[in-house]
């Protein structure tokens, strides 16, 4: 993570500590910031002491389902008050300054819509509520942007999930916001639409807009975001340059499950390899812990051939996002 970059947070090099505040951190100067922000519902902690700031460009909010991403986005958009700490938009608490909504937009994840309105009516409604001088023109502009002109005069109630996602995004963009908060914006979109939306958001980011979008899918974040906030169980597990975090993710120890014609023979050879951290022979299965993913997968085929052992199955056992993220936290 570069210290001079527009995103601050717990360092990704060294032990991640969400409480640490790097010297460059200035929440009042950032378009979007959280300072020890926490939110709980009764006894359930949804967001736990999160501190970061986000600047222009696309930032991905990555984390498994239930990590607190939506709660955080709802706090940033002023729909939820932090239970403790603060959430700042342009340096001010948003719930006390609704005027900020002239420059901020939210596309929520929840599939709520005025089913009786047409896409165009919804866009015009959004433009009027945003107090734009020419609501019809603004609506036409965003309908074209999100590629919804053909279906614009049909009721939203009959839209597919992907179409609803696009009209939601279009409505959010109607006032040409400087800060854009998107909660799982690509859910339900087909690959072509997804690409179109990513190109659109990428272009907006290049114009200097601040875009924060949540996703539980690594590939989406990888393609769009230069910087990421990684959330796990309500905490900020990592923040910073995407590539640095991705490297941490791929360089971490991996566990594999192997099925072979002779588990003991191949295990005996694998334990001598540098990349192999541990081997456990189980019931018709061999579990291997390796220091790095690529080296091990190349190695195991060679070792099996040398030992004359047939390799039936090689399966990474911890590839869920949860395991990737918990590695980042416990590292």
């Amino acid at each position, binding site marked *: 993570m570069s210290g001079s970059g527009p995103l601050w947070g717990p360092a990704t090099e060294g032990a991640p500590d969400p409480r640490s505040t790097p010297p460059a951190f200035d929440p009042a100067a950032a378009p979007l910031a959280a300072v020890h922000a926490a939110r709980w*519902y009764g006894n*359930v902690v*949804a967001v736990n002491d999160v501190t970061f700031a986000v600047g222009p460009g696309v930032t991905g909010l990555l984390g498994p389902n239930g990590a607190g991403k*939506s*709660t955080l*986005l*709802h706090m940033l*958009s*002023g*729909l*939820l*008050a932090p239970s403790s700490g603060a959430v700042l938009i342009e340096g001010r608490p948003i719930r006390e300054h*609704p*005027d900020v*909504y*002239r420059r*901020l*937009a*939210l596309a*929520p*994840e*929840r599939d*709520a*819509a*005025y089913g*009786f*309105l047409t896409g165009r009516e919804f866009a015009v*409604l*959004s433009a*009027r*509520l*945003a*107090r*734009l*001088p020419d*609501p019809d023109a603004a609506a036409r502009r965003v309908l074209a942007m999100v590629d919804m002109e053909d279906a614009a005069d049909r009721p939203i109630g009959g839209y597919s999930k992907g179409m609803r996602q696009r009209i939601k995004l279009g*409505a959010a963009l109607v006032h040409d916001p400087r800060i854009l908060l998107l*909660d799982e914006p690509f859910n339900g979109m087909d690959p072509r639409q997804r690409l179109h939306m990513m190109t659109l958001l990428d272009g907006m980011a290049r114009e200097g807009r601040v875009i924060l979008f949540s996703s539980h899918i690594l590939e989406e974040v990888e393609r769009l975001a230069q910087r990421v906030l990684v959330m796990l169980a309500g905490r900020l597990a990592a923040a910073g340059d995407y590539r640095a975090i991705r490297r941490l993710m791929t360089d971490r120890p991996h566990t594999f499950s192997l099925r072979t014609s002779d588990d003991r023979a191949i295990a005996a050879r694998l334990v001598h390899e540098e990349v192999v951290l541990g081997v456990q022979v189980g019931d018709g299965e061999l579990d291997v812990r390796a220091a790095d993913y690529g080296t091990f997968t190349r190695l195991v085929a060679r070792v099996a051939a040398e030992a004359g052992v047939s390799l039936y199955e090689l399966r990474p056992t911890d590839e869920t996002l949860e395991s990737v993220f918990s590695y980042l936290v416990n590292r």
Partner: protein
Amino acid sequence: MGRHGVFRQLAVLTARQALGRRRMLVALLAAAVPVLVALVYRLAGGQDPELFASDLLNGIVVTTLLPLVALIFGTSVLGGEIEDGTIVYLLVRPVARREIVAAKLLVGAAATAILVGISAALALLISLPPSLGPGMVMASSVAIAWGALIYTAIAVALTLVTGHALIVGLIYVYLWEGVIAGLFAGTRLASVHQYVLGVAAALDPTQPSLLQAHLSAASSVGLGLLVAAAATVFAVWRLAGFEVAERP
């Protein structure tokens, strides 16, 4: 786009969302009841139309129909947005919370006043002789509009307190307005039912009115205004602190 553009947009949106809900059918069916009762009375060649009309107005329209319809509309105008989750689209816009509440309240009260007012007008015109009918319709229309505003304000406020606003509202109407306010004279000062009757009786063309009002017109207007204003201010305050959780 001025302030009135936003207000009108909110009002149109509210009308389309709230009036499209299934519970509107209940309101329509309920509104048919006074008309049917008046038809039966007329066809049976009923005696003493003034007493019948007063009983109809007091006993069916003001006691039951008006609060029922006001609660149905009043809990739908904002409650519908909360239930459907569409309230998010209003809250993340630079729109004052009082503007949202005002538009919702106005649409709910107007819809109630029109539906109940038409129902009462038809029933009165059917049961009363032409000499009394129009005057009584005027009195009932004004009183119903007044009651619609107060009851709707209470209903809108309730939707910002509980997710079961309609049920809580019905319990309030039938327990407080129906039973307790009838038992203890002191509670009549805090009874919307009495505010409506007070206004109706003052405008009643047959004097002394048979409507059994316990409050003067001035008290009915003043106290009603107090209740409606308090409920509205409370609703604006609750909406300002309103929170939307994606998945609690």
